[in-house]
């Protein structure tokens, strides 16, 4: 027994020694990491402190320095007589990065950011108004500019817009005997889905994930029913959620939509098994690669017509700087990025619809396929519009939660939306 205890103790000593060594290694690693962080942050301040350098942040990490987008940024910089330092962020990171930078007093000179974020940043006092820096927004479609307005002021200018519509697979519809011209409202769409499912194919796919993306995809149906974001549990809203829930129950839409992002939903459509997919302008390039014939229709309203879809796309804005002298150049940069000629180039690069009627006409002339998208963008509506501003996020979260609850069967559409309305009312009080 005694021998055993000694052995145990010896083992314990060895163990502590090796543990201490491990801790030492971990510490060295951490210090090294810390040093790296220190270096990189030093680097950054050096770059933005320079008088002739202007920083631009954008959410397009897919474009590298050789892309047309970055070339355009550099051209605009040299026209304004300054060097442009561009940094690309993942779109979900950009909001918090900007808030942190603004807190530290080193926000970028020009910021390109997703439109529903504008009201949040404006609320934080991070952005200048268009009056402050004398931006001309008169040519912009008012429904697109709406997302950047709050309290009668405009914060920035849309660089391009996109929205949602229904892609359809011609082969699947023909095989099931559905004429796309007959799909005009919810009843005829559901009837088409029934035919397709009966023919052994799959109906429709969309994204109902529990994030802003889910709300974005639900909104065309929500607004198409005549519902309003200020009252989530109205009978119209219930009819919109019931439409989706019934599709799932009847097997017209796959159960996986509850976790689908717009990308995974697109991948489902790209298999060629689905008749319809709700997706955006940005998938056009991928649609050509699918290998089957596709078409696009606007999302129908409950009893016909085109439902208002939410506007997507980014705004160019000018964050507040300590030295107001910088605004003159920033203004030139923004004007350059959004002028008519460049707007055509930019929106083509980004696969967006231009925010002005003049450029939209040019886009359709160059590519007639875009007609349906231009119409959809004209009918679209900003999420933070209707003077909701920063109330929108507080309504959107209860809404996507309700969508998830109803689709997963944990609550009826009626009950789920009633809960959502209570939560939204409490949050926006």
């Amino acid at each position, binding site marked *: 027994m005694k021998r*055993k205890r000694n*052995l*145990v103790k010896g*083992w*314990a000593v*060895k*163990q502590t020694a090796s543990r201490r060594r491990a801790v030492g290694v971990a510490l060295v690693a*951490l*210090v090294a990491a*810390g040093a790296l962080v220190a270096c990189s942050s030093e680097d950054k301040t050096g770059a933005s402190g320079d008088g002739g350098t202007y920083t631009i942040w954008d959410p397009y990490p897919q474009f590298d320095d050789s892309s047309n987008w970055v070339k355009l940024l550099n051209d605009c910089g040299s026209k304004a007589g300054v060097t442009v330092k561009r940094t690309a962020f993942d779109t*979900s990171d950009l*909001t*918090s990065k900007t*808030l942190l930078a*603004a*807190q530290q007093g080193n926000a970028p000179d020009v910021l390109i950011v997703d439109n*529903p*974020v504008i009201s*949040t*940043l404006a*609320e*934080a*006092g*991070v952005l200048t108004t268009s009056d402050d820096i004398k931006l001309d927004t008169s040519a912009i479609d008012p429904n697109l500019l709406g997302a950047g307005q709050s309290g009668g002021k405009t914060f920035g200018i849309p660089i391009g817009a996109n929205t949602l519509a229904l892609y359809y697979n011609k082969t699947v519809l023909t095989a099931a005997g559905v004429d796309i011209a007959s799909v005009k409202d919810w009843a005829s769409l559901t009837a088409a889905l029934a035919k397709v499912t009966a023919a052994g194919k799959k109906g429709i796919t969309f994204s109902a*994930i*529990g*994030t*802003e993306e889910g709300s974005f995809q639900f909104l065309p149906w929500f607004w198409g029913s005549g519902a309003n974001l200020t009252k989530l549990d109205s009978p119209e809203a219930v009819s919109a959620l019931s439409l989706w829930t019934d599709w799932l129950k009847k097997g017209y839409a*796959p*159960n*996986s939509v*509850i*976790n689908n992002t717009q990308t995974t939903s697109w991948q*489902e459509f790209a298999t060629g098994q689905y008749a319809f997919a709700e997706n955006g302008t940005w998938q056009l390039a991928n649609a050509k690669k699918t290998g089957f014939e596709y078409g696009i229709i606007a999302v129908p309203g409950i009893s016909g017509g085109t439902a208002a879809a939410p506007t997507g796309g980014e705004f160019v804005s000018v964050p507040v700087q300590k030295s107001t002298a910088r605004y003159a150049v920033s203004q030139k940069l923004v004007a350059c990025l959004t002028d008519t000629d460049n707007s055509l180039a930019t929106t083509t690069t980004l696969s967006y619809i231009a925010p002005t009627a003049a450029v939209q006409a040019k886009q359709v002339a160059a590519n007639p396929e875009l007609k349906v998208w231009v119409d959809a963008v004209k009918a679209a509506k900003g999420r933070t519009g209707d003077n909701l501003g*920063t109330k*929108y*996020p*507080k309504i*959107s*979260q209860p809404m996507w*939660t309700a969508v*998830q*609850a109803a*689709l*997963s*069967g*944990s*609550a009826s559409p009626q009950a*789920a939306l009633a809960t959502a309305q209570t939560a939204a009312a409490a949050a926006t009080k």
Partner: protein
Amino acid sequence: MTAYLLAFFAYPLYRNLDLSLRDYTVRSFVQGGAPFTGWANYAKVLGDPAFGPALTHTVVFTVVSLTFQFVIGLALAVFFAKSFRLSATLRALFLVPWLLPLIVSASTWSWLLNSDSGVVNAALRMLGVDPVNWLTSPQWSLVSVIIANIWIGVPFNLVVLYSGLRSIPAQLYEAAQLDGANGWQQFWRVTFPLLRPVSAITLLLGLVYTLKVFDLIWIMTRGGPSDSSTTFATWSYRLSFGNLLPAFGPGAAVGNLLIVMALIAGLVYIRAQKRQYEP
């Protein structure tokens, strides 16, 4: 060393505490001057209808994951302790889940468990069982993330417990054999007691890792559907970053609750350690 500790541990902790005790809006986050509100954020979090389920999910997720990780890890460690042909190769294979970046494992699991095109449901269909909505039904989502987390945690337990086993002197087993102990008795009388210190530290580290598991759940279910797999970690993230309008205060409060839970576990461990060394 002190400066390092202050800069990288004390200050962030202080900031997080400060965040959780003030009423931050996006405006006051940038411009400063958020009013001190005491425990209001904590009261808000505790009174939130999501609090109860999130606490239950955190506890269930942690306890079930730890139990299975430890039991499976120990069983495998004992199995591999006997050297046989290919044992080293097989052991290396078991390490793969640990080496993979979490985003890869989590995405792979969500493909496997996809309701419509997942391999698991295809297998169930072949066996004539009704497919299960693993990630999209409120009853199964938590189970699914737990299964994935167990798979990820087993290698860690295996490695640490295996090295613990190697340091148990072979003479003890010889002595036990001479005394006529069978395999089962050897395990319970020799292996298990001698492995206790290693087991304790494995479980403690496992607990800390599991409490803060975030990426796995976020990628697989986003804490949904309708909060059915939300734990404190995902809830805290959603409050602070998962929304267009960040709520830093309540987010930090939930984060601090997590830290407190880990701290309590650490204190329990230290107490247990002390008792062990006192005669």
